[in-house]
Structures are given as C-alpha cells and as structure tokens.
C-alpha cells in the first residue's frame, strides 16, 4: 500500500511520514481520540489517517470533564467520517444521561456494522449514577441489534438495560461482563444458550434490589462464571439461584450479601473458588440497622437476626457445594460467622475442599470458625493462614458480641475438640502460617521461637490440632523477612526441627 502512495518528505528528515499507512494507524490508535484527530492538521499525509483508526477508547482523562464532553461530540463526527471496514475495539466510559440515547444508539449500530470485536459501554464512571436514586428510565437501553452480532468476541456493559430481539445469536462471543445490569429471570439463559463459544461470564453487582437468576444453558462447552457482589446496597433479603450444568469454574468474589444461595444442576466436575475479601461492616450494613423507630434496643435485635441469617446463608452455600472441588479463601468475617455455627453446635459439613487460605488474626473468636471449617474438610491437602494486625472494628462488631454469649476457655476447649481430629484428615500434608504483623519478624538460624511467632494469637492451639494429621509433612512459618519449614521431631514430642526434604 505504501508503495502506491506519494509520500511527501521522502528526501527530507521527516522519517515518520514515510511509515506505512498501517504503522501510522497503529500509532494513532494509541492516542486519545482528540489527539489522534489533531494530527490531521500536521500535513496532507496525515489529514485523513485518524479516520482509519480501529480502536476507539473514550474515557475520562484526569479531572477535565469539558475534555470528555468534547471527546463525546468528537465521537459522533468520527462515526460519520470513519473510513475502514472494521472496528476492533469500541469502548466508552462516562456518566450517561437519557438525552444521549439516540447518540449512543448510533455509535453502537456503527460499531456492530463495522464488525466490532470488543464492545464496552460503561455508563457509570465513578459510580455517579448509582449514587443517585436510579430507576430504569435513567439507564441506556442497549440496542437489541447487539445481540445479533456475529463478530463480537467481548462484551462489557455497565449500567444499561437489556432488551432482547426475537432471535439472539452471538456466534463469536467469548467473554461477557455485566456490571450493575438489571437482569430478567431468563436473561442469562437467553445469552448463554445463544453464544456457543462463551468461555467466561462475569456478573458484578447485578440485580442489587432483587433476586438474581444465573441459569447457564446446558449442552454447551465448558465455561467460567464469576460473581462479584459487595454488600453496598444489595438487598439482603434477596436470593441468588444458580443453575450451572456445564460450568466448570465458579467464582464467588467480594462478600455474600444475599440471604439465600441455591445451586442446582451442577456439573460433575465443578470447581468453586470462594474468595471473600469484602468488608464486614459493609456486609452487615450495621449503621443502618442500629437505629429503629422504637429506640435503639430493638436495633441490636434486628442486627442479630441479620447476622444469624447470613451465617445460615453462608453455611448453606457451603453445604450446597458438597460434591464440588472447593478452594476457599476466607477473611475474618467469614471465619467468625462460622464460629457462630460452631458455637451453636451446627453439624460440620462434608466438603471436598483441598486448599484453604484463611486471613485471620487467630484471636479467640476465630478459633471455633477455623475448627468448623477444618471439621468440614477431611480431604484438605494444604492450609494457609495469613495473619495481619488485629481488626478492631471486627473485635467490636455485633458478630463478636454475639459470639461472646458463648464464652469458652481456650485450652480446655481445644483439648475437648482435639479428639474429633484423631484420624480426621485424610491428606493434610502442608500447613503454612504467614505472619506479617507483630514484632517477631526474624530469627537466628536454629533459634525459631514458636511462642514468639504466635505471640498475641491462638496459633499454638491451632497448631496442636493440626498435628493430628498423620500425613502432615511440614509446617512453614513465614514473616515479612523470613520463611522456614519445620517438622515435629517425633509424634509424641512438641519439639520442632527444621524440615529437610
């Protein structure tokens, strides 16, 4: 192509203008739309280049909101003038208002007609829209034409509503990310049953005020489903219903704000990752419930019911996953919820869980929860305990107050529990403690002090319990500075010696 063009500057020092059309376009694709368009004024050679770019990524740049508005108006000019046959990426991010409906529609149609591969529409930058009281009238209703695209590989939507055409066909679609989208009960079934190549479905904070149905259509290739919800504004009396016959990997991220989780029709080889790093305070919405119209005494009761309901929801979810392979990464609040289960004498579950990672300060009210988890996971192979500074808000939380009604004495409690762990673990081989807080961060070779390492925590009790695993090969003790593996000198002693494989 470059050979047939007349290239000004051939004999001057203007090297860059000699680059091929394709290379110049790849350079312009790396610039914000206004800067790309501005190159049109450089010389004749550059005049139309910006009209060929296949990557459109309009988003706020710094705090300059007037620039974003200019970019949005420029986008409409670009859509009119665009020269090439295809668009690879069309991504816009800004706070939508309903006046823009027809404008956005024209962009979306443009992108689909140009065989767009990646389409991202994020209409709630900085959560401006969610902050206000929003009903569906303020959202962009996605043009139904999108659901007939044969080129679309990646679709990402935030703060839109979906309206399906009579026939949905997304023959190339591999990744769908839906963020704060209100989904009808059959919406996900509709999408998944008509996207034969779908590999990943991510749902972030969808249907925050009502039940969410995640029904993945059967008889299609394997696919990963990721669900991320945080308690912020999710209606705690809503449910989630998952039907996942061909889903091989399921992720729960954030927190578990709903009161009921049901998973039916599971794939025989389902792997579940529960990674709960959401915050506890958000999770309970504590502040909102503290004040009641009849005075604050009642507030506490309401909160306790809420906590109890979440304890049940969490335990039920775990029970629901009994035949799946589970990886659990739980944070303090999850552990304390299960402490409640343990102290209220709930039956341990029977989970097929080989890897567990717990972030916990190993305080008194964490131990019962950890015991509950360990009792529920006979097949555990590796346990990792991450210890950080004590979370004061957790210690002062309503949940901890509830636990205090079941006061116990640590050493006698562990002695009574330890019997349950004789022959309990089938394959626990490795335990790792990582302590990133506290003073004990390093030790001289040969002088590791177990009590120093666990100072201020109940770690020693836990360790005594884990020693009951007959397969246990070694325990790793790690800090910010150091890491060393130890084993028990012999079964009867409590003397730890460095482990040499």
């Amino acid at each position, binding site marked *: 192509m470059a050979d047939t063009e007349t290239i*000004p500057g051939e004999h001057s*020092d203007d090297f860059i203008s000699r680059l091929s059309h394709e290379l110049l376009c790849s350079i312009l694709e790396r*610039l914000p739309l*206004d800067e790309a*368009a*501005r190159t049109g004024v450089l*010389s004749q050679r550059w005049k139309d280049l910006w009209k060929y770019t296949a990557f459109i990524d309009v988003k706020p740049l710094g705090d300059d909101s007037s620039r974003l508005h*200019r970019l949005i108006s*420029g986008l409409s000019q670009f859509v009119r003038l665009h020269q090439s046959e295809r668009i690879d990426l069309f991504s816009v991010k800004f706070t939508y208002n309903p006046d823009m409906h027809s404008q956005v529609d024209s962009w979306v149609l443009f992108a689909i007609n140009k065989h767009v591969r990646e389409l991202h529409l994020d209409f709630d930058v900085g959560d401006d829209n969610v902050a206000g009281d929003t009903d569906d009238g303020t959202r962009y209703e996605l043009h139904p034409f999108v659901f007939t695209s044969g080129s679309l590989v990646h679709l990402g939507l935030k703060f839109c509503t979906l309206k399906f055409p009579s026939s949905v066909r997304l023959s190339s679609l591999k990744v769908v990310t839906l963020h704060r989208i209100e989904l009808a009960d059959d919406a996900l079934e509709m999408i998944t049953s008509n996207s034969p190549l779908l590999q990943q479905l991510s749902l972030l904070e969808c249907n925050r005020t009502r039940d969410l149905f995640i029904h993945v259509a059967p008889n299609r290739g394997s696919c990963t489903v990721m669900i991320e919800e945080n308690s912020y504004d999710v209606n705690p009396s809503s449910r989630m219903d998952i039907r996942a016959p061909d889903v091989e990997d399921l992720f729960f991220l954030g927190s578990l704000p709903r009161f009921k989780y049901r998973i039916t029709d599971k794939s025989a080889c389902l792997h579940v990752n529960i990674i709960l790093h959401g915050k506890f305070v958000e999770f309970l919405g504590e502040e909102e419930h503290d004040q009641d119209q009849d005075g604050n005494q009642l507030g506490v009761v309401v909160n306790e019911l809420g906590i109890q309901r979440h304890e049940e929801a969490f335990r039920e979810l775990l029970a629901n996953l009994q035949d799946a392979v589970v990886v659990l990464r739980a944070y303090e609040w999850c552990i304390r919820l299960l402490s409640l289960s343990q102290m209220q004498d709930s039956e341990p579950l029977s989970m097929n869980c080989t890897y567990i990672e717990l972030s916990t300060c190993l305080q008194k009210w964490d131990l019962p929860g950890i015991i509950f988890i360990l009792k529920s996971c006979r097949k555990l192979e590796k346990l990792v305990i991450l210890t950080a500074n004590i979370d004061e808000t957790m210690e002062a939380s309503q949940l901890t107050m509830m636990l205090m009604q079941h006061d116990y004495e640590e050493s006698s409690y562990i002695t009574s529990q330890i019997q349950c762990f004789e022959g309990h673990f089938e394959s626990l081989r490795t335990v790792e403690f990582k302590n990133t807080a506290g003073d004990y961060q390093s030790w001289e070779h040969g002088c590791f002090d177990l009590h120093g390492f666990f100072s201020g925590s109940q770690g020693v009790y836990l360790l005594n319990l884990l020693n009951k695993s007959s397969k246990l090969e070694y325990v790793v003790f790690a800090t910010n500075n150091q890491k060393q593996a130890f084993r028990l000198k012999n079964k009867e002693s409590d003397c730890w010696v460095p482990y040499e494989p």
Partner: protein
Amino acid sequence: MAFTKKVTLKSSDGELFIIDRAVALQSRTIQYVLEDTNPVDAIIPVPAVDARTLSKVLEYCKKHLIDLNTDFEDYSKWDKDFVDAEVWMLYDLIMAADYLHIPPLIDLICDKIASMFKGQTPDKIREIFNIDNDFSKEEEEDFKKKSGWAFK
C-alpha cells in the same frame, strides 16, 4: 542440540551476524525462511536492514529470549531504555521490525512514538518529527473548524 543451533544473517551492507536459531525465530519472516528452506549452514540475507539497525534488533531479540523469566518490572525498564533513541533510529528500527515481522518490537516502538505525540500541540509535533506543513493557511483553518472539538 537444538539449543546450540546457529543461524547466519547478512545485513544489507554485507555484515554477517551469527546468532542462536532461537533468537532468529522471534522474527516471523526468518522463521518462514527457515521452515521453507531449512538452510543448515546457509546465510539468510536481510536486504532491507543495515548492520547498525540489525544489531540493535538482534539485541532486542536476545534480551527477550534469555530474560523470559525475569519479572515484568525489569523488563519494562530495559524496553524503555531500548527505545530511548533519536527519531531516525526509531524509524529504522520500526521499519526493520516490520520487515522482519517482530510484533512485540513494533508495539514497543509504536508506544514510544505515540508517547512523543501525547499532550503536544501540532506545531510542537511538526518540530519533533520534522514534518513539513504542506497545507495552505486556508486548508489548515478549514480543518480546525471542521474538527473544532479536537482543538481546545
């Protein structure tokens, strides 16, 4: 044995570069030549690239082969220094990378050139890259008017 296999490249100005086959294979152009003809000891001509540029390109290929396991930060620092060069050198490099078909190197140089555009006025860009403005005053004003949104 495959690890020690050597390939000889000949630059446009006749210089020979004896390099590991694995290094040369990062160029898809050379990969096709090797797959098609499998010239065991033959010399592969690279007529579009002079010795100075070729040695620089091969430096990139070697780095990106050997250090595949070093962490990302080290890597990006090296890349950043690698493209810290005069405009004419960037031009030679991208032309060579294009001819030899080494996509990551093309991307790296495009990123670099784009970063030289970012935040600059058209006048400043013309100055950086020696671009001759062959518009008439009227044509230039007309363009600015039509795409007023792009100019503050």
